[in-house]
């Protein structure tokens, strides 16, 4: 039940894009086509899950016992940056096809604040290892859901007759706002399920 709550919370209710505002830059940047949005999503899901799994021991087994929690930000960003680099190298060697598909998105992930955000939120929520990994995965899936839906709408926006000053980013942001309103509906779902 606890995991259901984490997953539903991460994917729908506290969606990273629509309610936490994490990972907005790539959300606006690589959502021109559904295909590229899918590629980026896969890369983010993979990196975010692994990053949650690696930053947990870094914090709980290294920084916390040594009493140097204040190095959290520096340590996490270094771990994530090197993880991304490492994943890129391994992928290139092990699965060149996957590398071809995701390769160009991987370097972009280092500056995706959603990854660092998930790692920090895991620490703040005092999750156990498994909870942290599940939370990272759920948040990434929520981010992926948001960007793929958004890319689908955006492909159609290209054909729509948008007033000239609103073309491009302005209409994209307004669209996101409307999607965000609809995601608000999921908050009721949570109450129905868990608060009886």
């Amino acid at each position, binding site marked *: 039940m606890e995991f259901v709550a984490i997953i539903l919370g991460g994917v729908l209710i506290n969606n990273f894009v629509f309610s936490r505002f*994490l990972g907005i830059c790539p959300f606006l940047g690589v959502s021109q086509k559904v295909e590229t949005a899918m590629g980026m999503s896969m890369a983010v899901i993979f990196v975010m899950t692994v990053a949650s799994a690696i930053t947990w021991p870094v914090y709980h087994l290294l920084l916390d016992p040594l009493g140097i929690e204040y190095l959290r930000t520096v340590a996490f960003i270094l771990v994530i940056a090197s993880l991304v680099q490492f994943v890129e190298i391994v992928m290139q060697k092990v699965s060149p096809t996957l590398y071809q598909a995701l390769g160009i998105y991987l370097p972009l992930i280092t500056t995706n604040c959603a990854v660092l955000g998930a790692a920090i939120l895991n620490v703040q929520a005092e999750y156990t290892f498994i909870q942290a990994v599940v939370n990272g995965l759920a948040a990434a899936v929520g981010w992926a859901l948001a960007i793929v839906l958004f890319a689908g709408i955006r492909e159609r926006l290209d054909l729509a007759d948008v007033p000239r*000053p609103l073309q491009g980013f302005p209409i994209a942001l307004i669209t996101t706002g409307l999607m965000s309103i609809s995601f608000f509906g999921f908050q009721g779902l949570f109450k129905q399920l868990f608060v009886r």
Partner: protein
Amino acid sequence: MGRLVKDFYNGILPENPVFRLLLGMCPVLAVTTAVANGFWMGMAVIFVLTCSNVIISAVRPFIPRQIRIPCFIVVIATFVTIVDLVMHAFLPGMYEILGIFIPLIVVNCIILARAEAFASRNPVPRAAADGLGMGVGFTVALVVIAAVRELLGTGNLVVAGRALFGAGLPIDPALVMILPPGAFITMGILLGALNLVGKKKE
């Protein structure tokens, strides 16, 4: 001297990081629920941006090109940690509100973008002017967006702990403006309005 002024001014209007370059959108959308939040977030960014620009510009001859990005990130993360600790100690209320977006200044694209595009290629005084200008531009943008949202969302503006409109404006506050959807919609409409004004000028 004229050049420094130009570098400083560049970040405020011609290349405003938020309205022109659309960089660092996450905190822009997240913390603009009230003017005070936007202002303090802006202060934190000004500090980190100026300091990291100065240090990166000062050490640029010693950093090998291949590993420059990790070096920049460590410098930036150090200043972010300083801000994090200082705010935690002296502004605990604001620290609670800004929450995760303080450590996330590390991955704010504006800071890395200025380090890469400007500070690593220019002397220290120019890098400082650029950092300060970009930071001020960012703060101005945050305060403007926050003012619109706070006014429409609560019917009042609170500046330095005092309400500007006494009992509030005679409007029905639209709560949605200070909820997440309002951030996206305000930002979209503001950008559209800026496009309209920009077109008229030309």
